[in-house]
């Protein structure tokens, strides 16, 4: 179902910089919609290092990626930004009236005079094992996620990986699979211990198989997998029959469709000016790790500064006939009203 939205600013990416952009835009009465491929806010902070402490956020001597995200969400709450999670931006089109329309893979359409790309290192996507020809099997017999378990009933499934996804799906799919084999490069797992114990029990009962091995090659025809070549740590290889392969090696960042937005990328980064953080395409801004300029530092605090300057420039595009009044949150009662504290 397609959803058409009109707003002031469309933000690509709900990491810390996209979130703080909502704050700076909100002080200027600009409304924002955010799109993120992940199912929650925080970007890298919550996906890669939710528990790792960050020490260089001004005023917060120590804060974890998750806490920083939670605090930013609290800080922007008064501004009522709307989030479109688990959606990937797929298209960007310029309208005759000068505005832009962003389209997502869920057919959300956001039309706004200003687009802010705060996409960090790109979209988080599943890691694809470096096995020759794997892409020809994807979507037919190789899957990086399980959307409908029923799809895997009576299949001969091979799962690879040692994290929670690999173990959880081993446990969940074992009862309905015809056969299920788990392979991992070592006889140890980073997954939750109780899942590992359950998996070992199933293996002892002969309900699944577990091998310390890696997948070296895929065999099949027309995208339908028939077997794989497995290799153990001593490089001894053997053939293993299976019709479904589920590799679970977590997520990595890929630039994705942003690469096709005509933003004149330099080594996958968007060049911007340092007065407005606008790209070479008027109306399209880039802030945070995704942009590049002389002296750029990939720090969260730099992204916050970039968001503040971007918001000033965005105001002039969204409200061409209004005068921008520069105010401080400490003294301005109108800003305090917006923040819900006055």
């Amino acid at each position, binding site marked *: 179902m397609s959803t058409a939205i009109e707003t002031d600013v469309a933000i690509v990416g709900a990491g810390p910089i996209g979130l703080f952009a909502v704050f700076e835009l909100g002080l200027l009465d600009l409304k924002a919609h955010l799109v993120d491929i992940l199912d929650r806010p925080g970007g*890298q902070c919550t996906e*890669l*290092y939710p528990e*790792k402490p960050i020490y260089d956020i001004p005023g917060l001597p120590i804060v974890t990626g998750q806490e920083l995200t939670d605090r930013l969400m609290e800080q922007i709450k008064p501004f009522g930004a709307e989030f479109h999670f688990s959606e990937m931006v797929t298209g960007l089109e310029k309208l005759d009236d000068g505005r832009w329309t962003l389209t997502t893979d869920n057919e959300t359409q956001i039309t706004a005079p200003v687009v802010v790309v705060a996409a960090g*290192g790109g979209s988080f996507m599943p*890691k*694809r*094992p*470096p096995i020759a020809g794997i892409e020809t099997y994807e979507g037919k017999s190789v899957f990086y996620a399980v959307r409908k378990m029923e799809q895997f009933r009576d299949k001969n499934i091979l799962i690879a*990986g*040692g*994290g929670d996804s690999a173990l959880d799906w081993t446990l969940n799919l074992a009862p309905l699979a015809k056969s299920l084999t788990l392979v*991992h*490069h*070592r006889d*140890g*797992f*980073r997954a939750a211990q109780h899942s590992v114990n359950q998996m070992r029990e199933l293996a002892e009962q002969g309900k699944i198989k577990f091998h310390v091995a*890696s997948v070296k090659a895929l065999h099949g025809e027309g995208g339908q997998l028939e077997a794989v070549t497995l290799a153990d*740590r001593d490089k001894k290889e053997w053939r293993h029959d299976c019709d479904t392969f589920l590799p679970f*090696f*977590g997520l*990595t*960042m890929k630039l994705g469709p942003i690469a096709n937005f005509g933003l004149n990328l330099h080594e996958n980064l968007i060049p911007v000016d340092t007065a407005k953080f606008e790209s070479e395409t008027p109306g399209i801004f880039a802030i945070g790790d995704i942009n590049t300029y002389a002296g750029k530092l*990939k720090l969260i605090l730099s992204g916050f500064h970039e968001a503040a300057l971007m918001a000033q420039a965005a105001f002039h595009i969204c409200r061409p006939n209004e005068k921008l009044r520069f105010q401080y949150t400490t003294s301005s009662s109108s800003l305090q009203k917006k923040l819900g504290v006055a």
Partner: protein
Amino acid sequence: MKIIATDRDGKEHELEGRDGWTVMEILRDADLPIVAECGGACACATCHVYVEDGWYDKLPAPSDAETDMLDMALAVEPNSRLSCQLTCAPELDGIKVTLAPE
């Protein structure tokens, strides 16, 4: 100290290590195509290298955090390490590493 790094095309690079820097930082500064997307926090497994020619056994053993994170790396071999967890030191002069496939 020297680091001998082989890139994904099989080309060898002789790099100057700096005491106290991580091997990942030296590889990145030499513009070798290593992603290191978490910036050295042992949180992403995108600085994965193979440690060659017996150098693996001369390294301090991986921490539990590194062993866990290697579970998220692709094409892991018995000589796999995360280069952000390897610190340059005089006793590693001449260490040989190969960038793992992406």
